[in-house]
């Protein structure tokens, strides 16, 4: 714009600020820092921050602003133009198996569990799992702070090998990669990721949607999910703690994500991918991102005559963040019991849950990150955010804007009538068949 500008950032983000500035072509950007954090402080405490020193340089913070806006430009500050970025070698070694394991781990290319070393032979074998050319571009990352990276079929194959995938799993991995949504987003709130796989490929690959459906009991479930995480590490700017990953506590679900093969035969309802407009015989993967997974059961305790599954599922909603929607994973036994309660379609259950689980407008406005995610949409006049933001404190409002914000899927072994709830957003469904 030609107008001098100075960002002010808390000192916790020093590495992030410098690396993002460099990736955005401004490696000499002048940045001023405050102590961390600044939120939750009183005006008086913030006045002291402003009158105090920049914790990185030790100089007076307000003087730092003046200096940053007025100091002459160095020759380095005045450089411009395209600069290529090198990633280093395409091939590592020769090295021993142990040497490769160490090299991949030491350079942040793994999940710190042993990998299958991606030799040329293993990658060639993986590439036989698709008809697509190894050099075809599969997708691009969303851009964001680090710009959009792109990747080829072969680069995806390397990650699939590392994760332990078989070649027949590869079209699923490619379909995930094609979305550009790579696992391991950098949020300070430690996101997790989930996928639903539908269609005949579930049985072709021997995916587990029975007992232990979400656990470590089947190779495709385990390795396809792990491949998603490794792609998040390698195909984009990477999940480098302190630079491109900021999850304060991290998320254990990131090891292989939440891989759900829907039990289409055991479910009394329409399969998830058909709800999204695909044909039953199509193979589809649907992706989610969010925070967590928690378990529940319909019976409130001993002596409960009829388990109230609908109420029990809904009872968890008010404690979830409003930043994400909701994914409900129902054991087929639970789904059948719900059908017996009168919910003969997913939509009926979605509608009941949406209408009957509410929070107060005050709770809504004071919920975590409401100021960041909901208030700007209310300010812009977007409904229902605008109306809900102005509602009286004690007004009851639904937990989410519409019933469709609740997604339902069925998987499990029917050994108990369980359900699990993920505080998650549906981000889309893509064809697996396209990548065969």
């Amino acid at each position: 714009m030609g107008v001098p500008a100075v960002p002010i950032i808390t000192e916790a983000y020093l590495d992030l600020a410098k690396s993002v500035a460099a990736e955005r072509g401004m490696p000499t950007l002048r940045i001023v820092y405050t102590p961390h954090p600044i939120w939750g402080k009183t005006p008086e405490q913030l006045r002291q921050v402003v009158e105090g020193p920049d914790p990185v340089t030790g100089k007076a913070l307000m003087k730092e602003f003046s200096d940053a806006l007025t100091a002459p430009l160095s020759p380095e500050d005045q450089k411009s133009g395209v600069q290529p970025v090198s990633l280093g070698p395409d091939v590592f070694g020769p090295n021993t198996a142990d040497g490769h394991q160490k090299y991949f781990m030491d350079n942040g290319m793994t999940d710190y569990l042993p990998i299958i070393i991606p030799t040329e032979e293993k990658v060639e074998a993986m590439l036989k799992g698709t008809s697509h050319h190894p050099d075809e571009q599969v997708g691009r990352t969303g851009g964001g702070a680090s710009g959009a990276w792109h990747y080829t079929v072969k680069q995806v194959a390397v990650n699939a090998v590392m994760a332990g995938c078989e070649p027949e799993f590869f079209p699923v991995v490619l379909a995930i990669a094609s979305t550009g949504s790579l696992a391991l987003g950098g949020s300070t709130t430690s996101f997790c990721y989930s996928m639903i796989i539908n269609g005949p490929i579930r049985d072709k690959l021997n995916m587990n949607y029975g007992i232990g459906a979400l656990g470590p009991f089947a190779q495709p479930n385990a390795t396809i999910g792990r491949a998603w995480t490794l792609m998040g590490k390698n195909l984009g700017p990477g999940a480098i703690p302190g630079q491109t990953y900021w999850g304060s506590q991290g998320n254990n679900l990131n090891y292989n994500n939440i891989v759900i093969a829907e039990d289409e035969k055991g479910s009394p309802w329409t399969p998830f991918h058909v709800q999204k407009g695909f044909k039953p015989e199509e193979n589809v993967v649907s992706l989610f991102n969010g925070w967590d997974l928690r378990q529940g059961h319909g019976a409130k305790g001993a002596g409960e005559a009829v388990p109230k599954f609908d109420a029990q599922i809904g009872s968890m909603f008010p404690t979830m963040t409003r930043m994400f929607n909701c994914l409900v994973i129902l054991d087929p036994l639970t789904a059948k019991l719900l059908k017996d309660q009168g919910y003969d379609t997913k939509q009926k259950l979605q509608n009941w849950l949406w209408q009957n689980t509410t929070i107060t407008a005050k709770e809504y406005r004071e919920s975590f990150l409401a100021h960041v995610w909901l208030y700007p949409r209310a300010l812009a006049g977007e409904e229902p955010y605008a109306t809900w933001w102005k509602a009286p404190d004690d007004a009851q409002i639904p937990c989410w804007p519409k019933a469709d914000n609740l997604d339902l899927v069925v998987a499990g072994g029917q050994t108990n009538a369980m359900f699990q709830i993920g505080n998650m957003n549906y981000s889309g469904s893509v064809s697996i068949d396209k990548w065969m």
Partner: protein
Amino acid sequence: MKRRKLLSMLGISPALLIGSQAAADGGRGGDAKTPDAGSPPKFTALSPKGTPPPVMRYAMAPPLNTINGKTIYLVDTGFFGADLLLEQVASWYQRNMPSVKTVLRKKAGTYPTDDPKLWAEIKANANATIMAIGH
């Protein structure tokens, strides 16, 4: 991690964080594929990395001679705490440099959303900008 931090401090992209070929080779020279008797076999492996975009470098905007008498836009990106911090920055200028005119603005939309209207306003009216990220 120390190496990464060092590169970052130097303003070098994390795209460069993968080791050199020499490091990947483990410092071995010659025909490394031929194992010594009793030593484990050696072989090559492929890099799992994607391809980063080229970096378009921008020259920094010309600096001001002084901020006295100038208009500084204070922009809140929407992260928590930024608005209150900027109010204190504005108060500091009022108390200590009253010739500086400050204009508080909240960027429209959630924090990743672009706000070209605000950028146009800044270009038309501001001599400088301070943007608070919050957190």
